[in-house]
């Protein structure tokens, strides 16, 4: 269970709050207007930002004292998900051991993860030698390897075309089916939110509202959601 206990964050005039819980395995799309604080919300959970107040709890444990790398989560950013000077295999290996002292078993796991996302045989390539879709797959393969119970997606497929994005979302669904991870995915696209197939937390006026089923929200949208969808 991910619990956001009266979580608040303030910086200057900007403020953000959340007070809800989501069970393990939930798939939650995070939507809202630009500048509403969607990425800030994910940064708070990931540990890049320190909350002004409240707690973030996973299975009852307060995450405040844990640095980002030790939190029970993996995050995929909009870009820069791979280190360009390392090979695909090394990029994945960092997800297992930050010192890259990989055992044979680790290497076998990396090969299996690459195979799982359709990148078998590309382990020696550098990110610059991959297409956008392949780079996204490699980042997702690392998330698969890390096997953390929370997966944060900060618009990682925004730069891909619609067909490729659908393909990646299907892959995300497959991966979380395997791992049972709780997914929080920031997106601007209502179709992506529907494709994730779960709940939606709408960010409005400085509050990340409790997640509700996405299909229900779109069928009977609140005035804020209506206004947002009209602008899309």
């Amino acid at each position, binding site marked *: 269970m991910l619990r956001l206990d009266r979580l608040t964050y303030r*910086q200057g005039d900007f403020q953000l709050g959340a007070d809800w819980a989501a069970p393990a395995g939930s798939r939650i799309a995070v939507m809202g207007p630009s500048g509403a604080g969607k990425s800030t919300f994910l*940064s708070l959970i*990931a*540990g*890049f*930002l*320190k909350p*002004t107040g409240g707690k973030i709890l996973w299975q009852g444990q307060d995450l405040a004292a844990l*640095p*980002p*790398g*030790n939190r029970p989560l*993996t*995050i995929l*950013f909009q870009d*820069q*998900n791979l*280190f360009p*000077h*390392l090979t695909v295999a*090394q990029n994945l290996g*960092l*997800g297992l051991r*930050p*010192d*890259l002292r990989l055992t044979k078993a680790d290497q076998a796991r990396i090969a299996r993860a690459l195979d799982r996302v359709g990148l078998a045989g590309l382990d020696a390539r550098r990110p610059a030698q991959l297409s956008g879709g392949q780079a996204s797959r490699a980042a997702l393969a690392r998330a698969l390897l890390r096997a953390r119970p929370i997966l944060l997606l900060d618009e990682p497929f925004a730069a891909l075309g619609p067909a490729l994005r659908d393909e990646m979302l299907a892959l995300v669904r497959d991966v979380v089916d395997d791992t049972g991870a709780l997914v929080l995915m920031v997106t601007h696209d209502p179709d992506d939110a529907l494709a994730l197939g779960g709940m939606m937390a709408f960010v409005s006026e400085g509050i990340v509202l409790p997640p509700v089923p996405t299909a229900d929200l779109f069928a009977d949208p609140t005035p804020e959601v209506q206004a947002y969808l009209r602008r899309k």
Partner: protein
Amino acid sequence: MASRPRPLSLLAPALAVLLLALVLAPLAAVGWRGAGVSLGPADAAAVRFSIAQALLSALFSTLLAIPVARALARRRFPGRSALITLMGAPFLLPAVVAVLGLLAVFGRSGLLNQVLLALGFPPISIYGLHGVVLAHIFLNLPLATRMILQGWLAIPAERIRLAQSLGFRPAETFRHLEGPMLREVLPGVAMVILVICLTSFAVVLTLGGGPSATTIELAIYQAVRFEFDLARAAGLAGLQLAVGAVAALVAWGLARPAAFGAGLDRRLDLSAPDGWRRWVDVLALTMAALFLILPLAAVLLRGVPGLLDLPAAVLPAAGRSVLVALVSTVLATVAALTLALASSRRTQPLAEAAATLPLATSGLVLGTGLFLLIQPFAPPMRLALPVTILVNVALSLPYLYRILLPETRALQAGYGRLAESLGLQGWSRLRWLILPRLARPLGFGAGIAAALSMGDLGVIALFAGQQQATLPLVVSQLTGAYRIEAAASAALILVTLSFALFWAFDAGGRRAAA
């Protein structure tokens, strides 16, 4: 933005405090010993000469650089890139080598005097104010040219296109595009050169001297080495510090990156006018190239024959110089990287201070302070090399820090969150992220630090006896003894080692980054 504490949060401030102490303790010693010392008319003359030679050097270097930079900005010709590369060389060229080259061309029996004598004119002397200024122009004209050239290249393409569409002639182009750019750039260029010339020592040691051509730095050297009047040396060092700090502060305010209005990031060359203006450009480029190449070629020609018959002091001195340069470079690079990483997310005042303060001082001032601190406990001569290393670290730190800081900031902005999310910390972060991504600027910065350290003639002149002499000191001593051929051979070795060290670090960095 609130964020988590950084892994370097303790190491960097501790290092910054240590580096600040390395600069502030000698300055405090200078202040303590020099307080109340009354300086005589000769010292006042040294202050006047220091400022006068620096002003003239800055003025002429800047003015002469304008036509060269303009010609480079608007002409395309074979060898242009080589000439621009050559313009970078004097920054790495040991000043003693430059002086030797200028002596070979403008000295008593130099090329110019031979031509003058052949034409029946009286010979000219390079010693004194004009010689010092000439050497400073040789060393700083390329720097000024490159800085002004950056200004020309920063004129937005949109404005150049507008000028072309309005049918601007060269005079109007100068009035509306080039003139405003020069008004922005030139004060900063002149001040940077003024600061460099205020702390110049090797040039004045050889071409200056005597009551009418002594700078404060030279007066400090004479007070320590010849009169052993440490109180007077400290008083002079205090004066040098005050003059240097004021100039550095003004330069800091005036030197700014060239940006003259918004424009898209596209390059467009200024149109290159024909007619007599073409010949003006040709003349400017030819004169600049000859001015830079002839002295270096003269050192080469004079030095090669003596390479097999070097004075005994040369090779041991070369070994000491390389050792000092390598140790200084490693220490300075580690220090600069630590401070730059600490400042990569937000400015750290301690790190900034540690990496900026040395700019306001000089090798001779720091050397005097360290001399005062060491002398009660040990013979300073015995510690000549360690002290030289410490001063080299302090003086190269500002350059290295400024080279690395934009790179560490870009690295943090691009990959900081990813590294943190993967738990990439400590040695793993250094091994797998920082060193591979920063290899190129680290190599370049270390190369500059190594070349500067290799060619430095400052603090070593205060401290060293024959057993501790570095190669620049040996070259200077041979030049002072009019053993010009031997000096040229030693200079040739010095310049080769300086450029080899720069190349080795720079190429190593580029290879590691590839």
